[in-house]
């Protein structure tokens, strides 16, 4: 029984895909077209009642929320592939700490920028330049804190690559490739080195190769 991942074209499901590749876990993907509203179909809502991607099906077991899915597989397959959770309870605590930072501080402004810059024209909505400016400022402040952190530590949770770093891959790739904001990363020495390191991992390169971003400007 191979795990199925829904919505591979989009950013959040890519967290799951890169995690599964790092853990050497086989998977299949099921396309979901957000622009056609397939995520709001009654059949999809039975799997994911909030109507967002991804959702995974592993035999009878359904799980949603990309970071919950990542944690489950990283733990289930702890002894194979890359260890993404640290080696001790304390290291795991630091992984969780920076994964929550990604979820609570990094992702919100990043997500707003994605919707405003990459999606608004597709949705027939005007860009909100004030919101873009505000989100870029918020993101800039977060990146300043990352710069300080990464000057003391090779990766976010410590000197080991973890779920915390991995979780940043999909939307940051949008930032540098499709939003014309690569300077936000490149202008920060340690963030830039960290980004070059994590984005050049074979697992991430494979995800980019197999599942292209659906919204290109």
């Amino acid at each position, binding site marked *: 029984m191979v795990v199925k991942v829904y919505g591979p074209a989009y950013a959040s499901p890519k967290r799951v895909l890169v995690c599964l590749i790092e853990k050497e876990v086989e998977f299949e993907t099921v396309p979901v077209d957000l622009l056609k509203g397939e995520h709001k179909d009654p059949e999809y809502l039975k799997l994911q*009642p*909030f109507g967002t991607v991804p959702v995974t099906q592993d035999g009878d*077991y359904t*799980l*949603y*929320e*990309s*970071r*919950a*899915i990542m*944690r*489950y597989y990283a*733990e*289930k397959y702890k002894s194979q592939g890359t260890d993404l959770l640290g080696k001790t*309870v*304390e290291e*795991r*605590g*630091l992984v*969780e*700490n920076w*994964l*929550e*930072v990604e*979820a*609570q*501080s990094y992702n*919100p402004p990043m997500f707003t920028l994605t919707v405003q810059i990459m999606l608004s024209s597709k949705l027939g909505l005007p860009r909100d330049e004030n919101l873009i400016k505000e989100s870029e400022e918020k993101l800039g402040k*977060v990146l300043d*804190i990352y710069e*300080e*952190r990464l000057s003391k530590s090779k990766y976010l949770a410590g000197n080991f690559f973890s779920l915390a770093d991995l979780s940043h891959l999909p939307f940051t790739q949008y930032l540098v490739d499709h939003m014309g904001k690569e300077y936000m990363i490149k202008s920060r020495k340690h963030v830039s080195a960290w980004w070059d390191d994590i984005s050049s991992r074979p697992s991430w390169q494979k995800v980019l190769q197999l599942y292209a971003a659906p919204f290109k400007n």
Partner: protein
Amino acid sequence: MVESVTRRSTDRQDQKFPMATPVKVYGPPMSTAVSRVLACLLEKDVQFQLIPVNMFKGEHKSPDFLKIQPFGQVPAFQDESTSLFESRSICRYLCEKYAEKGNTGLYGTNPLAKASIDQWLEAEGQSFNPPSSVLVFQLAFAPRMKIKQDQAVINENEQKLAKVLEVYEKRLGESRFLAGDEFSLADLSHLPNTHYLVNASDRGELFTFKKNVGRWWGEISSRDSWKKVVEMQKQTT
């Protein structure tokens, strides 16, 4: 005046073995994120010392505080040499480090149960928290701080929260608690924001007028751990 709250355990178990150093939590109990950690500590029966941070005086932005929480937010947390922040990660850490203490099922006792709890913890963090924390600020805190409320923001977030609670209403008709039959970290994580909305705003009916959500709120908010947190909040205002 420096206040510290140290729970003295009278549990015979703790008297047999040397007492562990209490963990340290930095921040005021009235903060929703701080109270999330306090509820977890109480559920897990882990001794803690609560160190006040005067946010009205800007102590959370002081250089000393920024060393332990670089975003200048509460809570910050220390367990001997381990320093952490972000309330939901502190809760997960406590459940893993002190797995055998207090409520041993709080983060599940098998991988599938834990995954379900993580799913609903993420739903809380990603779908429930954004609109509910805006409403907590606008309805419960802004008036106290003499900040003008923004009616458009209130309406927008009330609508968002109502949509999320529709999903919860359906789920809680099928399951006693969010992740399954047992109270878990996922339910716990909802206590702080919901408490303010039900008790310190006029929008409590978003929760109490829904049959299943109302039933669930009644159950989770009457737990001893949460009652103690509410008491701590009252003592420090």
